[in-house]
Every structure is written in C-alpha cells, then in structure tokens.
C-alpha cells in the first residue's frame, strides 16, 4: 500500500513538474512576444514623433511666410486684414437666390478674377 502511495506521489510530482515547465515556457514566450510588440510600438511611436517633428518643421511659420512671399504671384496669399471681411448684406447674390443667410456669418473678399477655391 505504502509503495503504491509513494509511486503515485512521484508520478504526480513529475506530472506537476512537467506542467509547470510547460507553463513557464509559455509565459516566457508570451513575455517575449509582448516585449517584441512593445518594441515595435515604441519604434512606431518614435517614427511617428519624427514625422510629427518633421511636419512641424516644414510648417514652421517662417518657412510658410517665405513660401507665400515666393509664390505670391501664383497663390495671392497675404496676411488677412480687416478689409478682407465684409457683411453678408454686401454679397452680390442673384436676385432669385433663395438661401438662409443667417447660417453664414463669415465672408471674405475674393481676388478679382481669381479662383478662390480652398
């Protein structure tokens, strides 16, 4: 009886050891995977931050002002001033134009003969 019990214990211990070993291996693998994912996310974030920095650098006000000066003849971009604003009543709508004017409150003077899209 005692030997059977002893044998059983040994078998159980071996089984548990095997299970623990398996779990350990799986955990290690999972940790390694998360580490890799986190490294990837970290790399992606740092890439993103470089792109953001580059975007900010390319859109820095100094550069934009210089570009708008350089391409003034094509783009007609100049600093917005009070004269560029008007009242809605001043807009020359066609006489049969039906539109709820209360929904618009900001208007701008367009360059004569110049396409003002965008």
């Amino acid at each position, binding site marked *: 009886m005692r030997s059977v019990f002893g044998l059983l214990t040994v078998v159980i211990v071996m089984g548990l050891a095997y299970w623990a070993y398996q779990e350990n291996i799986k*955990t290690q693998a999972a*940790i390694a995977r998360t*580490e890799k994912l*986190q490294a990837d*996310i*970290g790399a992606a*974030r*740092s890439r993103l*931050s*470089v792109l*953001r*920095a580059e*975007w*900010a*650098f390319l*859109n*820095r*006000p*100094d550069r934009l*002002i210089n570009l708008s000066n350089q391409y003034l003849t094509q783009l007609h971009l100049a*600093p*917005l*001033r*009070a*004269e*560029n*604003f*008007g*009242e809605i009543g*001043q*807009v*020359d709508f066609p006489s049969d134009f039906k539109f709820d004017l209360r929904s*618009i409150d*900001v*208007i*701008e*003077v*367009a360059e*004569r003969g110049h396409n*003002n899209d965008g």
Partner: protein
Amino acid sequence: MTGNSLRIPLRPLSRILPARARGENTESIERENIRRRHEEVREDARLRAQSRLLVLAAIFIGLYSVVGLRMGMLSAAEPSELRAVSTGSSIIAQRADIVDRKGRILATNMDTYALYVETEHLVDPEYTANQLALVFPDLKAEKLIKDFTGNRKFMWIKKKLSPDQVQAVHDIGDPGLRFGPREMRLYPNGKLAAHILGGASFGREGVDAAELIGVAGVEKTFDDRLRDPAQSGQALALSIDLSVQAAVERVLYGGMKLLNARGAAAILMDVETGELVSLASLPDFDPNHRPRPPVQGKPSDSPLFNRAVQGVYELGSTFKIFAVAQAMELGLVAPTTMVDTRGPIRWGKFKIRDFHDYGAKLPVWEVITKSSNIGTARIAQMIGAERQQEFLANLGFTKEIPLEMIEASGGKPLLPPKWSELSAMTISYGHGLSATPLHLAAGYAAIANGGYAVQPTLIKQTQPRLGDRVMSEKTARNAMRMLRGVVTNGTASMGEVVGYSVAGKTGTADKPSATGRYEKDKVIATFASVFPANDPKYVLVVSLDEAEDTTGSEPRRTAGWTAVPIAAEIIGRIAPLLGVRPVVENPDAADITKVNWN
C-alpha cells in the same frame, strides 16, 4: 532497530553450558551481552542523529547559499526593468511635448546619437582623428590625436549627431568609434517663442542614455511635469498661439530694425483668462542651440534676456490711467472734473513739468489724452501715497508676477524706498516705480475686463480666471473711454487700425544711466493698448528700447511715433487671426464671396 539482523541471544547456550560446567556465574555473561546490546543501540542512534544533523546542515547551507547568491546577484547585476509588468500606455517614456493652444508642436523629441571613443579599440588613431576633424570642422585633429594616444580610455566626441554625421562617422569605419543612443529636444520653429520655451540640455549622461533636463523658460519650470513618465503621452499645452506669435515677432522685428531700437518686447494677453497669447522679446536666440550666458557686458543686452518679463523699466505715462482710475473709483474726480495743470510744480529741488503747456486747467479725460504730468500729479496728491500704494499692490505692481517661467522671478519691481507724497506724484506718471511690461499688461487687463485683477499665465485655460475686484465696472468703463480717446484724438493717433477700435496709452520714459541720472536722448517707448475698445478682449503692450524715428527733420523718440505704429500694425495683423470680428466698412461689396470657415 535496523541492520543487525543476526540477533545475539542474551544467554547463548554455547557459552552458558560450558560456564555452568565450570561452575561460573552465568549472570555475568547475560550482563555482558545486555551491555553490548545497549552499546549497539546507542551507536545506532548516534549515527542516525548524526546523519540527520548532516542533512539539516546541508539543507540550511543550501538555503542560505541560495539567499546569499541571489542577494549577490541583485547587488552586482545591472538593474533591469521588470519584464512581465504591464506598462500601460507609456511604452517609451519620453520627455513630453510642448504644444501651443491649438496643439501645434513647439517642442518635441528626436532620436539621435552621441559619439564617443574607446581608445583601446582604435585601430588607427591618427587616421581616425584626421577623418573626424574633416567631419566636424570645429574639432582639431592634433588635439584628437593627442587624446587618442594618451592615457584616456574613453572620451565623448559629440553629444548630438545629425543623420548625415552618423553616416560619415560610420564611413570612417574604426571600431573604436562608438555611438550612444540619445534623445534630443527639438524646437521645430527655431527662434519662435524662444524665451518662453527656454531650452533643454543633457543632465546625467551614460553611454546608453542621457537625461534631458530643462534649463530655462517653461522647460525648466515644468521640468518635473515634462519628465514624469505617467504624463509623457500628454503634451503640455501653452496659452501661446503659434501663428499670432509669429506675426507679432515678425512685425516687432521689422519695427525694431526700422527704428534702430536696441531691443523690443511685446505682450498679448487675454483680459479674462490672463492667458498670454503671445510674448516676444527681441533680440532672441535659437533654443536648439541655446547660447551660454554672457560673462561680460550687461546681462540685459544678451539675447537670453527676456525684456517682457525680466526688463524692469520705468513705464512712463502709461501709468497715468491708474491714478485717474483710482481717483474716479474713490469719487475724487469725474471724467469731466477740471484739474489744475499750471506748472511746473516745485517740490523742494524737484520740478514736475509737462511736455507742452496745457493752460491753467484741463478736464480729467484730457489729462489722459494730452498726457499731462502736472494734472496726474495733482490727482495723485488727492489720492495720497498710502491709498496709491494699496491700489497698485492690488494690480500686482509691487511684487514679481508668478508666471510659469523661471525668468519671471527676475522681474521684481523697483519701488521707492520711502513712498512719500512726492513719490506718489512721480509714480502717477510712471517715474519712480519700475516694473516689467508684463506688470503693465496685467494692470491694463484689469481695466479692460471691467475691474478684476487677473494673473498672467502661460498655460492654456478653459475658463476666465478673474481675481479680486479692484475697481468698479463704471470706473473701468470710463477709463476705457479715456484710453480710446488717447487713440482717437490724443498722443496715440497713429494707433487707429481699420476695422478694430484700439484704446491705449503711450509712455515715453527716459532711461536711467549707470550713474543713476537719466540719459539724454535714450528712452523706453511703451504703448499699452486694449482692443477692441467697445468689447475689450486683448491687451497688447509694445515696448521699444532706444527707438528713434529718423524719417522727419529731427529724430522723434516719443512712443506715439515709435511704439504706437508698431502696435497698430501688430493689431491689424493678429486681430483676424484671433477671430476678433472687425467693424466692416467695405466699399467693394461686389467682391465679396462666401467661403467656408471652420
């Protein structure tokens, strides 16, 4: 009882019988055998106890050595981060970004490399040194050769490398040249808002990493917040508006050059929230390459000096409105009360004069629009030194402003040692008390927002931060009307901006010389303005150091000719950016079309 299976009987016949035959006592044989048996048992027990002790000792030694080994390993090993801990949102703990009020980046981080040399791994020190000197023109080849062949084993070459330089160093190909990963602070807008941001540099440095620490401006004030890993994902949002700041700096720079000024400062502040939408000081610097503090010359001539918050100047006639507002608040005068303006006032050896002779009397509102020193001094006499001191303290003129940048503590106002009646009279027109343009902006904001003290801040706010009431709404409204009068028919007539009604007050103060007297022909010209006057939203203070308009027959230095036109140009440029609705009188109605406006 184990082992000894062959059990010796206590009275073995083989010995008893012969003994009996010899007539000996057999008891002795039995005793002898009993003794032997006891001995055996004892020996057995001793052995067992010994082996148990041994096992126990082995277990103890084993356990203690495990503990000891682990402790040794922990103390000797490089600290490593826990692997299995969930890191949450922040995977790379970087210094947090700084953004403007609309989320545009003012400061961010870039990965780069630092270059160092391990001299024992250098294959060809001389060639490497010469090549390095070619890549980095600021390094001297001879010095590098000396360093590489000397006793040093390790030396830093460069703290930050550009990608081009990294490639060039790779191309040298010497195994002794090593790269350490670095994170560097990048200010993509260059000089823009340089004084606000300050700058950052490396703190403790290792081969694999270096600490980024703020050295000035908000970078230093919020160093802990920016370095906190828990908040590294959240950018620090300032109250600054990038495009407004750019426009202000550009106009201010143009004006400074045109008027040959030594320096200039501009502050744009929201009157309700105290947010500084723009804060500029010229000359400025590039925070990416922050210059070292000057070792000689006046610190105020250094580009690092922030005139807007550190420059303590006598602000001249811009102060007059405070005396008048207080007198109205106390019920001493009304806007139309006539004030004695006969001059000069003699006070001991001291004389108070006006720029022009304004006759015997002026109404209070004209004392402001014409900027009469004598009239204001008379009003200050009515108020008295004590009440004036209290009022100016409420407006914040007696202490440094606790702005969120480290330099603000340097802007402590200079007060008269004894606040006498004469002090009260001179302070009323802006002499005898020196404060920063930022103090002035805060004071004007209190008038503009209907009478509440407001504390300037650099952090984006979501709601008004009005402080204690310092004057009634009526007083504030009347003061605003007078300030508007200064622009419509007073000393700041060049401050009219199409579409936006500007109110404000000019101030031209002589600069104190090194000897304590006043310099001749050197002035600080200041224009403190509020716009739009009918519904005040922003305060703009423009201050120019030694500006001179030389377009006329003789140089003009008063603020009306220098600071006012610059302020007007700034307002014309920034008001549309700030979304202030202009009063439109557009003659060209046919040209107006609808645009989408988000």
